[in-house]
């Protein structure tokens, strides 16, 4: 059920992200969501894209150090308090959240949240039991 996230190791220097997004654009890969975590030395660029396999191959061929991880994607209503409701489900189920980032859909009145947890299956079960709709790679492609 989980969706695939690509993480790229980025040197912390000016313009380091440009060739990455440029390469993806040249291969017609569309970025759905991204987040960057950085230190003084380096950054970690996390991407959700419409064609994960193509992006993975493209970046590897270009010599980037990447890692593909499965994360949980959940659909929430685009209204105040909806994110809190989803996070409360995890908290109540004792699921530790590493990080999250969110993105909006273009047409629907929905937002999507990418959740990084230790146990995907457990988080997914808890969210589904609470009535949340999970998204898959196939959904991402269609967005």
């Amino acid at each position: 059920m989980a969706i695939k996230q690509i993480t790229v190791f980025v040197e912390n220097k000016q313009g380091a992200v440009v060739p990455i997004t440029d390469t993806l654009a040249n291969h017609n890969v569309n970025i759905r969501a991204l987040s960057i975590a950085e230190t003084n030395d380096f950054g970690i660029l996390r991407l959700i894209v419409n064609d994960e396999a193509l992006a993975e191959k493209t970046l590897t061929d270009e010599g980037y150090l990447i890692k593909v991880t499965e994360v949980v994607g959940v659909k929430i209503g685009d209204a105040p308090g909806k994110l809190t409701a989803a996070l409360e489900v995890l908290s109540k189920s004792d699921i530790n959240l590493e990080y999250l980032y969110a993105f909006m859909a273009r047409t629907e009145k929905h937002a999507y949240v990418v959740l990084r947890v230790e146990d995907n299956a457990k988080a997914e079960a808890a969210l589904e039991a609470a009535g949340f709709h999970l998204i898959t790679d196939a959904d991402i492609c269609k967005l």
Partner: protein
Amino acid sequence: MAQNYYQKDRETMPVEDLKKLQSEKLVKQVKHVYDNVEYYRKLMNEKGVKPEDIHGIEDLHKLPFLTKADLRDAYPYGLLAKPIEDCVRIHSTSGTTGRRVVAFYTQNDVDLWEDCCARAIVAAGGSNKDVCQVAYGYGLFTGGSGLHGGSHKVGCLTLPMSSGNTDRQIQFMTDLNATILCCTPSYAAYIGETLKEKGMGPNDIPLKAGIFGAEPWTEEMRRGIEDTLGIKAYDIYGLTETSGPGVAFECSEQTGMHINEDHFLAEIIDPDTGEVLPEGEKGELVFTALDKEAFPLLRYRTRDICVLSRKKCSCGRTLIKMAKPMGRTDDMLIIRGVNVFPSQIETVLLNEGYQPNYQIVVDRVNNTDTFEVNVEMTPEMFTDKLSDILSMEKNLANSMKIMLGINPKVHLVAPKSIVRSEGKAVRVIDKRKLV
């Protein structure tokens, strides 16, 4: 396993005979140098030593030392002992730490050097049935020419690849069935990484042995190279000042390198006092070239710290063995008053599962030394979790602190972002020297 030798009479000579041979050669060589090298004659006169005072190796300690500073002072012809018309070749050090050193060779000097390299190749199992890929740099650097010449003497089919163009190295290796690889250990490790990236393993290449030298490397690095290339990795030692690689080489026992002491007389001295130390004690390695004609250095201080041993070797060679040098005294960094050898950093990295790709950056800020180590992240360890990477850096810094006694700042950097020049990695950037 049956032992093969390139020059059995010399390599297995009874020690008493060997010492007699060394003594005879030394007496002649001191006279040759005194008569032909004004620079050294002056040093001997200052010390009050005459060639007649040298009756054998027991008198070696009476002779003055030569250091790298002498070689720089005497650049380029000051230590030349033969007329230029008798010389056929020049090699040079990389000159990264100061003025270049040039060494001259007569044809006899080249022959002797190539014989030494041939001994190393045969000791690593080489014969005329082997295909020997020489991936040391060719040119002024001695690595390429030395092993190339040795490979010819053994009768191997020689692939003069020089360093670099790793894809082509791998293609020639597989297409032409190379069985022996000669290069720097860091380049061997790099070839291994490239093989892995191509999805190839040890079974996809025909190599059986490697002869690696020209830079310090550790036992951990040896095991890593042996695993990725599926070979037995042999160490070789030498320096441009004495000829090049082949001054000492490893045999199948791999408990130190046999010094070709019929040509190069070795001593261990206390680097601070210059006093000769007994066998088995750790100190600075000093060489006297017994046969070299054009550039015959007497008591040349190598700055390499190691131990000598004449323990009987299972390979049958009687040549004295030197332990792998801990590092050159001029490789050693003094950071915040603590001695740091780059090889210690390498040991930590290999123990912790990293590739030995690192760079030490030392600087001085507000009168305090800064000590940073850049380490290449490995694909196996990369993760999307920032906290995990930060703790990897912290753990590495801790392990280095335990090894060295001082705390470095560790930075993980992208794979292959640390520059490799001609296969020889740039391990240390000491910005303090620029001030």
